[in-house]
């Protein structure tokens, strides 16, 4: 339920942005063109001390969240931060009520954050309790705790509205984030805590990586797995709690999950992933924070999530390691390679069958093979076959001559190499894996396309020991295809 819920929040934010932004802009422009420009320059150049401190604070928060988020994502605990943030809601309300009724300042940030941490930790303890003591799984535990605490918090916010002393204005900043109302002191707190978290992540990189990858081995190595988990959890708590004011409790999870998930598309190395994730976190927070500082009505959490989601979408599509586009390209290339290999091998086997392969020298094998014949040899469509031939012609492996094609010198060499590889694999399967001869062909087809050169070397060695011919071994099974037999029977009927 939570990912859906977050997805809905993101969608809602877009809607708000699209509908509200023109109003905000026109409100700003009405006040005179000059002041908007002045505003923009003032905020972007960060000439204002307060803005400058707030932006620096939010940027370090983004970096810390990006780092911690990478570890929690890989530990598969990403939603823990979400539950924690939601569970902090009643704490904020309780802290406010207690502080004001004692005559203190109900909006003192340290007091509110202390309250938030208190119920947040109770929430996490509740999740662990449900998970460990009942048969419910973690997702159910998360759902229960998250909604119950958030509901309780909302009810308490309602109570505050009814209170005589209560000026709840400002508290809703905790729900969607409000950098505009942040003071330099708040930002300094955020920056200090974030720096501690960043330092922790970098110092414990090795240990946390091991924890996330292989908990069992970490335990066997004598690492206190529980302590490491608590450290990671503590860092999530720190980032989440100090991030409440800047990003808001509903959307802080975005800063923990999205940069890390986006970074995963670009790299297969953990150290690069955390750097990339931190950079995305910093960039989104700075852009989101600036926007919110410029337009006091615009929640910074929403802006940060929007910027994050743009980065995520771009990464998902264009990511150089796991992006959608690169996967499509790779699959297409693989398909083309497979088609080419099938084409060349089909031609080679056809030629081999037409002539007495043992007596003929290589040059005589360049006889033409009709396209119709090739079509009947495999289960490919004419269109696909024609395209494969066209591409092979382009690469000068095959020549066309009306209705049939023949191998060039290079094509013959390549076809011989492929056929040899195919048959080596078949022999390997027959010799070592005890696969029935009749079933080999299909397996070999699937595997030869991913056969690494070192495996081929190994196969050659293995088959060499058995005194098998290496050049192009004779196919270990009868290569007469069904097509030919069908033709024969078909002819008989006619």
């Amino acid at each position: 339920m939570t990912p859906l819920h977050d997805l809905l929040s993101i969608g809602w934010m877009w809607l708000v942005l699209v509908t509200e932004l023109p109003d905000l802009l026109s409100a700003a422009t009405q006040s005179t063109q000059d002041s908007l420009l002045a505003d923009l320059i003032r905020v972007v150049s960060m000439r204002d001390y307060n803005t400058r401190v707030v932006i620096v604070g939010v940027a370090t928060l983004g970096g810390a969240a990006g780092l911690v988020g990478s570890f929690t994502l890989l530990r598969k605990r990403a939603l823990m931060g979400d539950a924690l943030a939601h569970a902090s809601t009643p704490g904020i309300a309780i802290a406010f009520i207690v502080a004001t009724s004692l005559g203190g300042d109900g909006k003192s940030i340290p007091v509110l954050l202390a309250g938030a941490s208190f119920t947040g930790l109770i929430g996490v303890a509740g999740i662990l309790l449900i998970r460990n003591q009942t048969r419910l799984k973690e997702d159910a535990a998360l759902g229960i705790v998250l909604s119950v605490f958030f509901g309780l918090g909302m009810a308490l916010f309602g109570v505050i509205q009814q209170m005589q002393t209560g000026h709840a204005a400002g508290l809703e900043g905790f729900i969607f984030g409000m950098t505009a109302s942040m003071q330099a002191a708040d930002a300094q707190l955020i920056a200090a805590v974030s720096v501690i978290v960043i330092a922790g992540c970098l110092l414990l990189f090795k240990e946390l990586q091991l924890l996330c990858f292989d908990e069992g081995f970490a335990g066997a190595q004598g690492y206190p797995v529980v302590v490491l988990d608590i450290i990671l959890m503590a860092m999530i708590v720190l980032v989440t709690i100090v991030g409440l004011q800047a990003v808001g409790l509903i959307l802080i999870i975005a800063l923990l999950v999205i940069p890390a998930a986006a970074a995963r598309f670009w790299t297969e190395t953990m150290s690069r992933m955390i750097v990339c994730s931190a950079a995305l976190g910093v960039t989104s927070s700075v852009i989101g924070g600036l926007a919110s500082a410029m337009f006091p009505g615009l929640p910074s959490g929403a802006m940060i999530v929007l910027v994050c989601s743009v980065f995520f979408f771009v990464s998902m599509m264009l990511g150089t390691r796991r992006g959608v586009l690169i996967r499509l390209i790779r699959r297409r290339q693989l398909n083309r390679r497979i088609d080419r290999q099938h084409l060349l091998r089909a031609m080679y086997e056809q030629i081999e069958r037409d002539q007495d392969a043992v007596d003929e020298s290589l040059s005589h094998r360049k006889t033409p093979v009709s396209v119709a014949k090739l079509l009947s040899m495999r289960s490919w469509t004419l269109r696909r076959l024609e395209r494969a031939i066209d591409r092979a012609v382009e690469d000068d492996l095959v020549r066309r001559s009306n209705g049939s094609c023949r191998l060039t010198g290079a094509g013959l060499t390549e076809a011989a190499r492929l056929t040899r590889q195919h048959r080596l694999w078949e022999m390997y399967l027959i010799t070592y894996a005890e696969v029935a001869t009749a079933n080999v062909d299909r397996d070999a087809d699937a595997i030869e396309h991913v056969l690494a050169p070192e495996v081929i070397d190994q196969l050659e060695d293995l088959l060499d020991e058995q005194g098998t011919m290496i050049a192009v071994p004779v196919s270990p099974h009868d290569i007469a295809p069904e097509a030919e037999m069908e033709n024969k029977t078909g002819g008989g009927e006619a």
Partner: protein
Amino acid sequence: MPDPNLSSEVDADAPVVDAPQSETPAFSDTSLSNVPLSVYDLTVAYHRKPVIWDVSFDLPAGSLIGIVGPNGAGKSTLLKASMDLIPRASGRVRFFGQSYRQAHNRVGYVPQRESVDWQFPVSALDVVTMGLYDKIGWCRPVRKRHRALAREALRRVGIGDLADRQISQLSGGQQQRTFLARALVQDADLYLMDEPFAAVDASTEHAIVEILRELKSRGKTAVVIHHDLQTVPEYFDYVVLLNMRVVAHGPVMDTFTPENLQKTYGGRLTLLDEVTEAMRRRESSL
């Protein structure tokens, strides 16, 4: 360092069927310093159901030991509980006469391959380097010499050329070899392996067996959870037959008998025929 008297003694009192450990009174830790793994009265329970009961055995040093038993017999649980990875209801485990905490750097662990997410963003070399983290120490960076050691371990298992490949790009057999290299790089005296032969190709199986033999020749001990009964006589010197309790343990030739297997697996006769055949092959080859 291995005391010849002691190991021969362990060999001699061979096929022990549900033997009470009364002949080792007081169970003094010093007398066990040459026993790589000594388990006494170990019971482990998940929720309310016991998984292994009253497991006791001393394993001989410098040998290859197979742990064999049907699915759900508690083989993995036995290894994990020995290393304190899961809590035990009762029992005492000693590695070279010490607790696991004290002796953990003398023990190399090869977990089941399925126990981790192979999409994790690390290379084979990174995984093998993890075997050195304990030596490197908390908060200290991995250095060049550590990576060189890890590369060497990958070469030993025959995939030195794949060191920089991301682990999801490795075949099942190569992933298993990576795990093996991670344990080898620790240079331990005892190796605990959880089904290293599960779903690997023939050449990987061969490579692992070679490494086991090489370890034995250097006086190391390996405890291997194994599923393929046919290869037990060929691969191992000593066997522990487990089905929630220890049915029997001792040298393969005396312990790996149809009667004991019958007790371990119940009446699956086709299986027993295969094993009898395998034992006969081994006898004739000796």
